[in-house]
């Protein structure tokens, strides 16, 4: 009898929860939420957060090398923001993880074990100063498209963090544009840096938005995130938005895109493009990308090296 009552209560709670979401209300950390909502948020935001932390690394490689004082300052501030975004997002996840008694060090361990994934783009190499610029311009551009899509997320803490993050991303995109613009208007070698970067990063940019549906990689979280009003558009819609915003900008600077089939089809109002090699996403998810292991190692070293600091300052009562 009691079991039945509890079940009834669960049903009631779920109904109430869905009604709140449908009414556009925000769910807060202490509110009741269905397990799959919590689970979906944890997966999504922990990957987002740790990707910011890992994403600081490719650009960090170029911080000391930035070619002018102003560029050194700009890219330092940008990498700082990436770490800051990681901070904001990991705090959101850490609060969601409370029922499981998991904390930040568990997230770090998950990352080291390979259980917690980070975005495909941050497994790639940043070989040149052109790549440092392109990451700011197009990778952050892609990130802005996918993050603004979730600004109205039903989960309040995520939505609030995203508002702050997106505002800072505007600076990032302009920082990237400034680097690219200087190169595009520069010498032949400088111009070539940008073309080489576009050629290297193009496929990663398409992969970034995720597969159009389940059939490309076997699973996709997009249906549940849309149902729970965490985001509004599908992966494919976001990728199309990226084409719409960036293709003409790339071309306007006199650069080419490494896809001869790319065109806007007036009739269907969609971009036709060469599908990327979706199997690469699985390779990267196994941390087998060009720089996956190096970057993980860097994180692991810094975590291990500073262990004594955490131990020394841990309050003694526990």
């Amino acid at each position, binding site marked *: 009898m009691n079991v039945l009552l509890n079940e009834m209560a669960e049903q009631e709670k779920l109904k109430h929860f869905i009604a709140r979401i449908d009414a556009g209300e925000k769910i807060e950390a*202490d*509110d*009741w939420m269905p397990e799959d909502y919590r689970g979906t948020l944890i997966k999504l935001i922990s990957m987002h957060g740790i990707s910011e932390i890992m994403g600081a690394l490719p650009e960090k490689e170029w911080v000391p090398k930035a070619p002018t004082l102003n560029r050194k300052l700009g890219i330092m501030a940008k990498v*700082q923001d990436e770490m*800051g975004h990681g*901070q*904001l997002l990991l*705090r959101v996840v*850490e*609060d969601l993880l409370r029922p499981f008694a998991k*904390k*930040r*060090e568990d997230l770090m361990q998950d990352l080291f074990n390979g259980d917690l994934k980070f975005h495909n783009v941050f497994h790639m190499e940043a070989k040149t100063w052109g790549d440092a610029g392109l990451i700011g311009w197009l990778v952050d551009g892609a990130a802005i498209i996918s993050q603004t899509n979730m600004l109205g997320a039903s989960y309040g803490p995520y939505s609030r*963090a995203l508002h702050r993050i997106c505002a800072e991303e505007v600076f990032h995109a302009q920082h990237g544009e400034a680097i690219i613009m200087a190169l595009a208007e520069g010498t032949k070698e400088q111009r070539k840096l940008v073309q080489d970067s576009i050629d290297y990063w193009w496929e990663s940019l398409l992969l970034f938005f995720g597969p159009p549906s389940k059939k490309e990689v076997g699973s996709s979280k997009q249906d549940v995130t849309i149902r729970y009003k965490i985001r509004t558009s599908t992966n494919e819609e976001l990728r199309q938005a990226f084409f719409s915003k960036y293709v003409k900008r790339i071309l306007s600077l006199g650069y080419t895109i490494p896809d001869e089939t790319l065109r806007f089809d007036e009739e269907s109002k969609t971009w036709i493009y060469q599908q990327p090699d979706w199997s690469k996403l699985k390779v990267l998810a196994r941390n087998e990308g060009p720089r996956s292991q190096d970057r993980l190692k860097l994180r692991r070293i810094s975590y291990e090296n500073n*262990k004594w600091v*955490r*131990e020394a*300052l*841990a*309050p003694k*009562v*526990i």
Partner: protein
Amino acid sequence: MEPRQEAYFEEFEVFSRKTKSAPVQYHYSLLAPNEDIAIMMAQENFMRREAVDDIWIVKRQNIRKMTADEKKTLQRMDNKDYRTTKGYGYLKKKWRKYEQDMLDEKEIMSWAGGVKNGE
């Protein structure tokens, strides 16, 4: 036995105000081993692009929030005009009969800094 590392990461809630007269506002939370380090982290983590006049940090465990049930106690009916000036608006008409202006909120608040003498 290895000491428990979790303790390094205490949760602190961060508040600040922009100017001396502004209300204190909640920002975000951060992890730090103690108050002194937490307050040092606060500005650069959350307010590195904006003006700030003061920062407060509070250990999360010292904040008592309302439960979902307790939040139900915050609802009330819309029948309490007697508590506000709205319930006394009719006085304006009354005073007019005696050829007097009503001492309404706008008038009274304008006395800040002194009342001008006169008829």
